[in-house]
């Protein structure tokens, strides 16, 4: 496969177990060497240790030195990365571990270790953040917090985030673009809204479904008490104006469908 990931935003890497997501991340981090082809990260080779300092990563379930506290773990990693005066307390607070900084890591739950892993990935203020299943083992509140953190990092601090997750709903909420791997190949790639554009439909609920269907003609299909219309987002305002000025009393108009899960299953199924 050939893949080019643009700087900025949150980029999702999706695929079934064994599709090659973790392998791809490990090659980017020089944990393993590719048998063929090459990878360029931030304009350089992953084997360049100076370049890797600009990357933060959390691959699979994080592992730590059991005799270090969370605070000491971050301090040690900051020293290793050459970061002077690392904001250890700030990052502990941002991942919700401000009250657990003095506890030894081997007492941590899985969710706490995931949070510490994210803080560890961010301690060097990286330009690129690679996260493999970052919310695995977290409670729903923690998942929401991490999602907000990722969007904040991408939008306000300009960090490029590569994210892999099996929680497709989470990916759809947080990512701008995705690539779908299937059996080591690239099944689909692009902006989520464009990939799903064909699936999305506008569901209209009117006082009179019959009048609405008559006005829409072949464009509308009944869906329970409403009507589904295959129309692009850019054409939707025109359509709505046409219906309203045409005497249709609309109660509700909302977008439905366009689910990443459905698209993903179709792509993986085609690749199989």
């Amino acid at each position, binding site marked *: 496969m050939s893949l080019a990931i643009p700087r900025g935003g949150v980029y999702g890497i999706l695929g079934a177990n064994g599709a090659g997501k973790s392998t791809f991340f*490990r090659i980017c981090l020089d944990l393993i060497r590719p048998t063929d082809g090459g990878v360029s990260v931030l304009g350089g080779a992953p084997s360049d*240790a*100076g370049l*890797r300092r600009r990357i933060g990563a959390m691959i699979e379930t994080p592992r730590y030195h059991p005799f270090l506290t969370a605070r000491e773990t971050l301090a040690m990693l900051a*020293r*290793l*990365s050459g970061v002077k005066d690392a904001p250890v307390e700030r990052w502990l607070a941002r991942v919700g571990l401000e009250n657990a900084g003095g506890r030894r890591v081997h007492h941590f739950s899985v969710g706490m270790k995931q949070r510490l892993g994210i803080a560890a990935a961010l301690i060097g203020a990286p330009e690129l953040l690679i996260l493999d299943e970052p919310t695995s083992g977290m409670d729903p509140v923690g998942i929401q917090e991490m999602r907000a953190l990722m969007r904040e990092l991408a939008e306000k601090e300009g960090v490029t985030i590569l994210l892999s997750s099996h929680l497709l709903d989470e990916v759809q909420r947080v990512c701008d673009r995705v690539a779908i791997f299937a059996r080591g190949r690239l099944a689909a790639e692009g902006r989520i809204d464009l990939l799903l554009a064909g699936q999305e439909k506008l569901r209209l609920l009117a006082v009179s479904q019959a009048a609405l269907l008559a006005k829409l003609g072949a464009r509308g299909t009944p869906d329970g008490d409403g009507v589904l219309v295959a129309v692009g987002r850019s054409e939707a305002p025109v359509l709505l104006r046409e219906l309203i000025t045409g005497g249709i009393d609309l109660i509700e108009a909302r977008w439905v469908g366009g689910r990443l899960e459905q698209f993903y299953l179709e792509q993986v199924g085609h690749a199989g």
Partner: protein
Amino acid sequence: MLADAVAAETYKVLRQRGGLFWGFCAVPLSVLLFNLMLDTWIGTRSPLPLALDFGQQVVRSLALGGNPIFQIFFIAGAVSIFSGEYRWETWRLLTPRNSRANLMAAKVILYAALTGLSLAALGAAGALHTLYAAALGARVALPGVDFPLTALGSSLASWAELLLLGLFVALVAILSRAMIGPLIAAISFAFAQAMALLILGAASAAPHWFAVFPGMSAWYLRAWMTGTEIAPGIFAQTALAALCGLFLLGWIGFLATAALLLFQRQDLTRE
């Protein structure tokens, strides 16, 4: 970058109190306590019959780095440093932040520094117990003019031998990705050399090939540097001592290079 790796490794090891104590503090502490207890026991029961030579006591303490029993502790310290990342699967946490060469070099540097400090403490233990014995009434001879050189020579030979053992542990740790393997292999290596030394006996009867064994080389080099008899009336020869020194350096270079090359190419997706 290397400085960062050394700083991080130092920070980590200083918090690994068990490995730090048993690997590098237990030997000088136990030697000191044992000698103090012995001096006290002898001093309280009868006047100390022999005169102690301050220089000899220090040099003998420094030579304890070649004792296989004490080497077990240094081996344990080396295992805690070189095998830890495999044990806790933490290489994936460290390798993205610094080069593999620097990460491994930092461990070697720290092990060498801790070993050096431990040997210095051993020498200090020899000095302290001699002074204590003097305070209890023993006759203590002051060191001769050659003391600094012999002390330095003894400590360098011991340090080289311990460094070699540490690098052996590093190599086996990389190959085995475990803690038990390097521990048992290094202890076996140390004891095998001690047995070889006993079996070969007087070096004057041994051919030059024994210098290939690092433990033998260190022993011979130490004997030459301190002017100690290797057999009754027989002293170490300069030419053979130089050969032993070269072999020691060769062993250290070989083990360090092999460990580094293997680690550079190692697949760390499974640790």
